[in-house]
């Protein structure tokens, strides 16, 4: 892994410094960092800069005013927390724009399509202290109203400068378009989701309880997450704005853990199952095992994919937990929690328990990050298909390998859960 020898790291930095020629050597931190942690020591991620330079720059609007239907969408930045930029996402168009900020509706659409409509979302920025947001007045109030609104809502934004045109990409957050500082913000009458509104006005209800209750009432995760990020939940005094990126993982984690409290006590499934799925040039196999809860997400990044642009070989990373769960943040990031939630939704619906290993091969067609929703929604979609059923682990793994390019040996050596399955005997083996 990275950082083990200083020479690897030096090489990495040196190669990134060569202007114009980006090279990610084997064992580089990029697949773990995913542009978020600056592990290479640079101020900005050279790969991200490359994406930006590729993305088309165009002027969406010529004036300082923008009127449009917000899907509704908002964004809370994370840099400089607790002093962060918050504000609406507004497209320069009217009509039903709800698709633009509802990732639950994006499965099956191409990267081009997603990037295209996301690029139309202009982000208004307004700097606040996330932990002390009440004192900032109307722009904050309107941003909150938007986040809690059920339907697309008319927004009029006045900017200080013309929004500068570039696409914002992030591994966890869905991409969006140009941004500018807000001068003023007006919005039409927001129509709150009644369920969300109830949690909003309940200032004794803890945030985790609110998230769980709304999910059980059928509110979309993207809606819960939006409300979570504007501090709409929780005990009065402790409410705060939460950066969008953090709020996505917080909601996935809260809900996944909550389902696990039930699913971990269910009887196990009876067979070995594999669910196949392919989308956005990501190939998925989800292996469910007739064991108690254990879970692993293994991602293989091919050369020429987002986090392995010019590598010579496939980079594989994984995070896992056994029955007791994990305490530290998953190495591979928010997608771990998103997929864990999706798996537990299936187990909950079946009233069963299982061990799960998710194999993901990101092939070269996956050229830019589109957000954690990609993992959550695609795992959900995969688990709605009819699985292949097997009698043994080895036949199930044979099927996985037949669909994937990576060899069985490499999968197993990258997987703590599979290694354990192969080497650790059970008491039942001796009865």
């Amino acid at each position: 892994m990275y950082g083990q020898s200083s020479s690897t790291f030096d090489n990495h930095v040196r190669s990134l410094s060569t202007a114009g020629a980006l090279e990610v050597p084997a064992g580089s931190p990029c697949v773990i960092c995913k542009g978020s942690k600056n592990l290479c020591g640079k101020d900005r991620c050279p790969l991200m800069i490359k994406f930006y330079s590729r993305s088309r720059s165009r002027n969406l609007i010529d004036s300082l005013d923008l009127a449009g239907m917000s899907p509704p969408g908002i964004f809370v930045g994370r840099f400089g927390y607790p002093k962060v930029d918050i504000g609406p996402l507004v497209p320069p168009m009217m009509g039903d724009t709800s698709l633009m900020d509802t990732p639950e509706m994006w499965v099956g659409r191409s990267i081009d399509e997603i990037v295209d409509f996301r690029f139309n979302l202009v982000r208004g920025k307004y700097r606040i202290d996330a932990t002390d947001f009440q004192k900032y007045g109307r722009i904050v109030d309107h941003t909150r109203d938007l986040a809690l609104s059920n339907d697309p809502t008319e927004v009029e934004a006045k900017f200080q400068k013309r929004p500068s045109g570039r696409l914002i990409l992030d591994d966890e957050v869905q991409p969006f378009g140009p941004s500018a500082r807000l001068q003023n913000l007006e919005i039409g009458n927001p129509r709150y989701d009644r369920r969300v509104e109830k949690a909003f006005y309940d200032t004794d209800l803890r945030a985790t309880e609110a998230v769980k209750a709304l999910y059980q009432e059928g509110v979309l995760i993207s809606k819960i997450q939006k409300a979570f990020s504007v501090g709409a939940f929780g005990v009065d005094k402790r409410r705060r704005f939460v950066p969008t990126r953090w709020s996505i993982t917080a909601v996935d984690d809260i809900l996944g853990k909550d389902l696990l409290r039930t699913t971990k006590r269910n009887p196990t499934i009876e067979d070995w199952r594999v669910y196949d799925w392919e989308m956005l040039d990501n190939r998925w196999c989800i292996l469910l095992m007739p064991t108690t809860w254990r879970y692993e997400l293994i991602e293989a990044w091919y050369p020429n994919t987002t986090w392995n642009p010019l590598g010579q070989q496939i980079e594989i990373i994984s995070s896992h937990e056994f029955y007791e769960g994990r305490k530290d943040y998953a190495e591979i990031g928010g997608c771990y929690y998103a997929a864990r939630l999706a798996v537990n939704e299936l187990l909950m619906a079946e009233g069963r328990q299982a061990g799960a290993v998710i194999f993901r091969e990101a092939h070269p067609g996956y050229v830019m990050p589109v957000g954690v929703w990609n993992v959550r929604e695609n795992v959900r979609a995969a688990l709605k298909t009819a699985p292949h059923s097997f009698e043994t682990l080895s036949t199930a793994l044979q099927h996985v390998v037949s669909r994937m390019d990576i060899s069985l040996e490499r999968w197993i050596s990258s997987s703590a859960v599979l290694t354990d399955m192969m080497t650790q005997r059970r008491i039942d083996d001796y009865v």
Partner: protein
Amino acid sequence: MFHAKIKSETLKGVVDVVSTLVDEAKFNIFSDGIELKAVDPAHVAMVDMKVEKSAFEEFSADETELGIDLDKIKEVLRLSRAGDIIEMEQDEAKNRLVLHVGNITRRMNLVDTAGMSDPKVPNLSLPAKLSVTSDELQKGIRAAESVSDHIALNATPDGFEMYSEGDTDSVSLKLPKDLLISLEVTEKVKSLFPLDYFSNMVRSIPAGSVVTINLGSDFPVKLEFEIADKRGNVNYLLAPRIESD
């Protein structure tokens, strides 16, 4: 029917031995004592425990089953001091267990035992047998912890060894025959075990106990020891890791 009084430290010993592997357990109650068999959720380890009636200060019971959430018992234990007597009483009408410590009364709902069948105990004939103090085992585990996540237990006619090998380092604790309490080994045996399980199991053995280890080659290990002032005994079983190549 179940009604008993027990010293808090004795109850703590019983709970510790079981809660290492499971959060909830089914205690089988008989007129002459209690028994419990449980496997951990991953089915890697098993506990088989018997505690005699005489381990209790008072004990009267008909045959019954109690499904108990062990965390709740621990909460009560935290309210007690060494030497305190804890009174336990089954409330059959409300399907509860009632605990009294001093002036505190804790009523806890029992866990449904319908889904908790008694696990089958493997019938193993393990060729090597030796006895050692739990303190020596602790030492071997501490040495291994920084090196690897598994530990090999080796026995020869000359002694016992705990050995761990990591990516770069290895560590071994060798106990020759004269440092062991007993040793009955005719040929060399060796099995590999997950260190986290082994460590947790050994940690729940009362300090200063004598542990009898039954060992084979690539077979489960059986740890036998006594609790409750020798009025209870515990068998732990731990399944091995097999390094396949």
